């Protein structure tokens, strides 16, 4: 294999691709530590002032607090819904299954701006718009599809006989779900939760429309972003990316083995 030009070309391409993927992030992080008020060259020296500014003003931190309420809650409910649905999709055959699955995927395909207006209109009619609860409700819709996909992937790796064995040994259906299916799906559930959490954590257009007096973090970022030119945004971007990196470590440990089918489950 050594010296094979294709391998060399592949690695070269991969290097270029990484450079492309990380270039904006490098710029983001770089200018969060630069004195320049506008990201641009030449560089004007290092500073922590934007971080200081970020943390001296409670607004973004409050927003982070709101996000830390909405996103875990939405991720938890979405994962729970997704688990039950994934179980049913995996086990039962029924008419309209494909249509149902397509329906689940649709929310991620509809442009969020359009969806945001629709959500606002409907939630208003049930007097729910403008609350964190509204953000929670709509985020669950958006993040259930990825969660479902991950859990389905995990459940598809479960031998059918595992459940049958539990029934055969006298377990009721519910006992089987609790004692066999759930433990088996746990890595998938964990991965799905992380993915759902990060989606909700990042989402802003829908949240912009339906959130009220308690903006989530991306909404707060956006309201500063559109109006002003403030490198604190780079600072918060860096922090958000840092948090995401932690999540990614979680992914590395849980989600990827699952996606790549290298799980340790029995044959």
């Amino acid at each position, binding site marked *: 294999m050594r010296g094979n030009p294709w391998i060399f070309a592949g690695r070269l391409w991969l290097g270029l691709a990484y450079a492309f993927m990380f270039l904006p992030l490098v710029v983001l992080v770089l200018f969060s530590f630069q004195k320049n008020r506008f990201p641009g060259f030449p560089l004007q020296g290092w500073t922590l002032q934007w971080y200081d500014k970020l943390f001296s003003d409670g*607004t973004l931190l409050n927003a982070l607090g709101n996000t*830390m309420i909405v996103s875990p809650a939405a991720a938890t409910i979405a994962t729970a819904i997704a688990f039950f649905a994934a179980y049913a999709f995996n086990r039962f055959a029924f008419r309209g299954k494909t249509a149902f699955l397509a329906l689940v995927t649709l929310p991620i395909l509809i442009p969020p701006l359009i969806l945001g207006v629709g959500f606002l209109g409907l939630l208003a009619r049930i007097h729910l718009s403008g609350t964190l609860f509204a953000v929670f409700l709509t985020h669950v819709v958006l993040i259930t599809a990825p969660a479902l996909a991950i859990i389905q992937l995990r459940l598809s790796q479960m031998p059918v006989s595992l459940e049958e064995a539990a029934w055969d040994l006298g377990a009721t259906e519910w006992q089987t779900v609790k004692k066999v299916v759930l433990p088996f799906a746990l890595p998938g559930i964990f991965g799905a939760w992380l993915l759902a959490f990060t989606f909700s954590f990042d989402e802003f257009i829908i949240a912009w429309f339906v959130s009220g007096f308690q903006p989530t973090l991306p909404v707060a970022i956006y309201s500063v972003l559109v109006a002003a030119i403030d490198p604190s945004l780079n600072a918060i971007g860096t922090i958000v990316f840092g948090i995401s990196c932690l999540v990614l470590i979680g992914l590395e440990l849980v989600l990827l083995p699952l996606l790549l089918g290298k799980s340790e489950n029995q044959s």
Partner: protein
Amino acid sequence: MTNKPQLPKATSSKSSSISRRMLLGSAAAGAAATTFGNFTILSRQAQAAEPLRVLCWPGYEEKDVIAEFEDLHKTKVEFKIYIGGEQMLQFFAQTAPGTFDAIISDAEYVQKLKANKTIEAYKTDGFAELANYHPKFRDFAPTKGETAGTVYGIPTRFSFYGISYNTDEMSAEQAGDWNSLLDKKYAGKIGMFDWYLPNLGNASLAVDPGNQTPYAITDDQLKKVKEFLTKLRPQIGMFGSSNQPIAQAMLAGDIFASPTGDLDIDLKLAGYDNFSSTIPKQGGIRWQEVACVCSASKNKDLAMEWVKYMTSPKVQSKLVYTKAFKARGPNMKIVDYWDADQKKLLSYVPDPANPGKMLVETLIDRSMPRGLPANQPEQAWIDIFNEFKTA
């Protein structure tokens, strides 16, 4: 629905003294602890002390601006930020009546709010600070109430859609004339704010200098506006959906000028001195925000107090200098709260060309308030803008 406003408040007030790490930790822990609290108490009625709720453009919610009011009235003011009049109308239309107590609206949107009966007129007597307002902001042209002495909204903040330009690429003299934008030199080097209203207003003035009512024009005049825009099209390098991308483009040298107003303020503040702004001699459009009181508010007295608060020169001096926006205040006494640099930056300094007047007064005189198309349907103007964009 903040049932526990104490938590974020406590966090933010202490924030300067405690470490970042601690802060993050406590915010996260607090958030976790209040998760259920926040979700179970959903209805507004369940809360004891009603805070004041305001729907506004960014800036009004900043602590410097509102803290004094909150302390004075021992209350909490909650803000829902919108960007663009349409969002404001949607947010208003799509929430239960009584959700908002007060609104900061663009002056011309007062018509739309009136049509929806969402705001009500109030008396101007008792607003002592109005005496210090620039005369142009005392006539309340777009916001006048039906009976004498009443208004639907009092101006709080304004600024201009003049030309911001790079002084290395454009002279002050050129920036003083709309027609310079048609110079071949600037082909592809003009940035434009992606909204038909200010741009068609400016074009209306460009073809009909000094028109006091640039939005009430005949179909023939509108045709000329369209022709002017057609000529302008090859000059446009980009459309910006907000100030930020336009300022960034100016700084990066992607564009040399933009009829977006006073981007130079932020650029100068950032240490880039090769930017300036002016209003061309033909005239330019001015935007202004006004404070309105909602008809369904259960907290009207406090809302009135807030409107009064917003007319104070001290508050306006901070409002026009927020992180979100740099703008100007209608209360001319705001200069008392500024140092020389700030005065210069916001052009509250004597105008050499107009003895006895401040530069900002000259600009106010030369500018016309943004309005809605008076003689044609909105869509006709939007179509012209869309046609211009897609030309």
